[in-house]
């Protein structure tokens, strides 16, 4: 079976007054139907930009400079804006945007806002749309009668559930969730993660979880990609990546995370801070912060190496 999503050498820059920002640079990965992938990395590493590029929801100063995005055999980069809107967005690929639980309009009922998303994409009656709204609300664990509530009558966790319901309303195959639990309290976060994992199983959904918090990725994703300065530096099955990280940045990221379980050990930080994507360092983008950098790292950009078993990393030190 061909993969549901195949991204190849995708490059996207933002044109700004100061120059080009290398937001997404030569990114490649695949995702099979029903799989979940987590994108981890610090702010500004390009993980949100990657999600937006897949949906082509980019501001006018963004330029997709190369690569391809094949979704279920369709080359999305060849699709025009109108086709994306009518055929792809929400019907096939939906997104839960960062902070979107605060994006409900305060003066409209939750149910009406969700049904608007269906009516825009499907030719169905208001009654059918309302029925669908009730269906998706119960799917995410909200009593369907709450469709008549206004956003202020919902708690933060419920608004996030409603946003997930809105993403599911047209039965997409693939959902991009950008930091879906970031502003939520820990108990609500656990409930939302469980909801996502459960929905995936129930609906055979594939999803991409974008998160700065690797523990949420460890919780619900089968595959993990670590991004640094616009590039994927390591990619593997989640278990492999967490047990045997090979790229120094991935190692650093993992050992910087405090854990509630196990003995307390001293956390080590990664010295320095991520580069300015206006002028990323030459060679390997991580070399100025890398504890094991050699001469070659500042000269040559490392190629993605296959380490076997679907594990890849881009580092000169890996032989």
């Amino acid at each position: 079976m061909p993969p549901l999503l195949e991204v190849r050498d995708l490059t996207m820059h933002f044109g700004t007054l100061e120059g080009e920002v290398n937001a997404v640079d030569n990114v490649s990965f695949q995702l099979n139907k029903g799989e979940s992938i987590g994108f981890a990395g610090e702010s500004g590493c390009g993980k949100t930009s990657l999600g937006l590029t897949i949906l082509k929801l980019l501001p006018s100063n963004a330029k997709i400079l190369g690569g391809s995005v094949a979704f279920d055999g369709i080359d999305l980069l060849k699709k025009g804006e109108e086709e994306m809107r009518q055929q792809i967005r929400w019907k096939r690929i939906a997104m839960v945007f960062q902070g979107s639980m605060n994006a409900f309009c305060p003066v409209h009922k939750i149910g009406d806002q969700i049904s608007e998303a269906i009516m825009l994409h499907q030719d169905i009656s208001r009654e059918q749309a309302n029925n669908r709204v009730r269906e998706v609300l119960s799917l995410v664990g909200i009593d369907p009668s709450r469709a008549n509530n206004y956003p202020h009558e919902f708690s933060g966790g419920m608004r996030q559930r409603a946003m997930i319901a809105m993403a599911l309303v047209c039965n997409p195959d693939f959902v991009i969730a950008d930091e879906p639990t970031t502003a939520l309290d820990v108990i609500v976060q656990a409930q939302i993660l469980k909801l996502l994992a459960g929905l995936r199983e129930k609906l055979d959904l594939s999803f991409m979880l974008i998160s700065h918090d690797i523990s949420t990725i460890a919780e619900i994703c089968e595959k993990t990609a670590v991004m640094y300065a616009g590039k994927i530096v390591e990619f593997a099955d989640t278990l492999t990546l967490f047990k045997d990280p090979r790229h120094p940045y991935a190692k650093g990221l993992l050992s910087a995370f405090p854990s509630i379980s196990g003995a307390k050990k001293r956390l080590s930080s990664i010295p320095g801070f991520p580069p300015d994507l206006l002028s990323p360092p030459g060679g390997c983008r991580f070399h100025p912060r890398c504890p094991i950098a050699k001469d070659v790292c500042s000269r040559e950009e490392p190629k993605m190496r296959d380490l076997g078993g679907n594990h890849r990393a881009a580092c000169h030190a890996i032989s």
Partner: protein
Amino acid sequence: MRELIRVDELVKWFPVRAGVLSSMFGGKERFIRAVDGVSFDVADGEIFGLAGESGCGKTTLGRLLLRLIEPTSGKVMFEGKDLFQIDGKAMKALRRKMQIIFQDPYESLNPRKMVFDIVAEPIELNEAASDEAEKEKMVLEALGAVHLTPLPEIMYRFPHELSGGQRQRVGVARAVVLRPKFIVADEPVSMLDVSIRTEMLNLMLELRERLGLTYVFITHDLAVSKYMCDRIAVMYVGKIVEIGSTERLIDRPIHPYTKALLAAVPVPDPEIKVGEIPIKGEVTSPVDLPLGCRFQKRCMYAKEICMKEEPELRKVDDKYVACHLA
């Protein structure tokens, strides 16, 4: 260890603004019970963690400890002096010993001031330096203590020229410049990226050793409190439900709320998954509290007594727990 702070039955209620009609027709005045009878002590040199979900009153409690706000009732003793009884002059002298680090390094530094002026401000307010040279020496020492580089150039930069991690270091330098004994750190790392976050946590641990600091460390992130704190107090809607040493509290929680909180924390290990979270419903409103235990509606084990009597914090094994069933 010697006791530095003792908090006794501290209460802070905020009035809820009522509509014109309800106040005309004698509606009862309502209160948000942000901090609702809290007692504990903090030893000299200790890192005492306040944990809990948003709205549980941990920030309000932190502000009361520094007398940034006045309490509704209760006491805070700092080195044996009652913060809310001493006069302005004595309070000013005490303020040199107590400082705060804020959550957001982007919002808590004045964008129009240079690093030097930001860090020197507490010195000026407290007239802690006899001349300009001494002031500069103190600022340089503080910036050196938090490892801000390059010195001295960085003194003449504005906050917008600094990265998030550098800004938070400026915030810490401002807090330690007067050589305080006690610092309230209110979610000091929740806005920071992972790698910078670890640096900040390690810096705060280092400063405790070097400067002999005592922290009250407020965080919603239990994995961070495990890393930082000697003891942890878990708050639920204005009350402490459990206090214990970090190890004991995390390994053997007793209160059902502590258990639920701990069960929900994801672990950066794909082999350990979050199991069932033993809790029902949503956070209790701090305005209309039920009779009895404030956790009753969410508790899986609530009994009749929990609906009638509010449980007091009492000693169970080596911890203090507020639960009838403990």
